[in-house]
């Protein structure tokens, strides 16, 4: 809906270019990515609420290539969670199409893994049996003999070795979230959808889990769609950060995060490049909120 004022957008783009990050404006005419694993095409969605219709998405376009980690940021209540439910096939869009692996998404499919802010572990099951839950629904995705072995190796990868037989209530919030990530990955999904999975954790635990995500990705390459409120998180984890406009949401701005030659560490968040990227994103969020961004030097 809201057109981005070119006077504001121009210096931002140049600022990003000079710092090595490439930024592109996206609108409905953006050319479509070839071989995209997830391709969201002109999706609009409106909820019927007690106070009348509420349009949350407006001709939203978004493509994610195979193996790519895309973060979506935007103002509160702009429809980010609706987006995850559309990609998961839990919700049908009013108009537009969601394509996953070259197939039109018409309903839920086994090739998606999900993790939420609430780890939603089943309290009556051990951590191991929680992680293995998806395999009870879609056992064919992993050879039967490897089910338990795979769960155990994922758990040890996120640092939960020795906690397999514990109940969720015996674990800290961060550990529960780690188990929830393992559950999202156990059935080798084509894409994992992360809806603010680190949102409720304290700052130190959150940063630990960011590192865990990188470790997981190094051993278990996956395609990811991350919804977050945390700009540092988006820059640290993603290859591409998409800023959504205020409701009804469109893709307002896309930032490519340059791949670093070495494994990312937290120090990388304090380089000039990273600080530039964060400043750009912050300005874009302010634009999305309808505020005039503070001048950017």
């Amino acid at each position, binding site marked *: 809906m809201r057109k981005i004022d070119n006077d504001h957008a121009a210096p931002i783009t140049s600022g990003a270019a000079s710092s090595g990050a490439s930024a592109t404006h996206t609108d409905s005419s953006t050319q479509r990515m070839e071989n995209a694993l997830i391709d969201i095409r002109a999706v609009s969605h409106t909820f019927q609420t007690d106070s009348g219709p509420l349009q949350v998405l407006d001709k939203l376009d978004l493509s994610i290539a195979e193996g790519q980690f895309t973060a979506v940021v935007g103002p509160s209540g702009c429809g980010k969670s609706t987006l995850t439910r559309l990609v998961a096939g839990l919700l049908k869009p009013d108009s537009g199409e969601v394509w996953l692996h070259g197939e039109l998404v018409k309903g*839920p*499919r086994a090739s998606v893994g*999900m993790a*939420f802010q*609430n780890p*939603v572990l*089943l*309290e*009556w099951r051990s951590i191991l049996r929680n992680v293995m839950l998806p395999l009870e629904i879609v056992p064919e995705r992993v050879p039967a003999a490897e089910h338990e072995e795979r769960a155990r190796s994922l758990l040890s990868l996120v640092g939960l070795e020795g906690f397999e037989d514990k109940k969720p*209530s015996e674990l800290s919030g961060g550990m529960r979230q780690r188990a929830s990530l393992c559950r999202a990955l156990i059935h080798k999904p084509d894409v994992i959808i992360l809806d603010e999975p680190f949102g409720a954790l304290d700052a130190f635990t959150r940063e630990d889990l960011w590192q865990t995500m990188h470790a997981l990705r190094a051993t278990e390459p996956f395609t990811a769609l991350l919804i977050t409120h945390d700009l540092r998180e988006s820059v640290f984890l993603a290859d591409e950060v998409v800023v959504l406009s205020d409701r009804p949401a469109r893709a307002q701005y896309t930032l490519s995060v340059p791949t670093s030659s070495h494994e990312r560490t937290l120090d990388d968040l304090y380089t000039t490049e990273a600080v530039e990227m964060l400043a750009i994103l912050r300005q874009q969020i302010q634009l999305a909120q309808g505020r005039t961004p503070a001048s950017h030097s």
Partner: protein
Amino acid sequence: MIMRKVLVPIFAIVVFLVFWELLVWVNQWPNYKMASPSDLWPAYVKYDTLFFTYGWQTLWRTVAGLLLAVVLGTALGVLMGVSRTARDALYPLLVGFNAIPKATVVPIMALMFVGQHDLNTILLAFMISFFPIAVSVSIGLSTLEPEYRDILRALGASKLMIFRKIALPKTLPEFFGALKVSVTLAFIGTNLVEIIEPHGRGLGHLFDSAKISSDYPLMFAVLIVLALMGILLYYVVVALERIFAGWAERGAD
């Protein structure tokens, strides 16, 4: 641990009995005003076979009513927990039904099922005790966080699968909480019939005959046995809860 779980409650009961005995003794109450614990023992010895026969009748009919309440209460609760329409339709009916004093239902039931004393009693125990179960199960199911459903739904799991793997086990703690309330309610139901509708069965009948023959210690003795049976059944439920929903219990202290 065992000290605390067993000895503390027993000690509390002993203290209670001593206090009761002293209260009667200090006030010098005659046993028609209030019998003391020491009056009860002779009553038990004198009528021991009656206590066993009538006690058993009360117990099995209460348990039968309770089982009926569990089956039908859970079914109603599931229906109301799964379907919003069913919830909107059934809640006022259930609340209204629950608000009717069950003592007034006793004569109606007696006319409806003339002579079928066991059936009358079981049905009343059921009627008075199914409500908490139905409400708890429906609330447990309808307040399930959507994310729980989504993790399985996103994989294409059927509604039945989600219900079996997540919704049902997650509702068990609420169910057992309600069952603990229903246990005592079911005893009230059974005894209402046994006392109001005299047909010579159960501890309620023994109470009624004690009243007619002015055997006051016997009346109190019946009440104590009813209390003990309530405690017994309550702990059976606690044991079942520990087996099936022990995960919901947080570590002690």
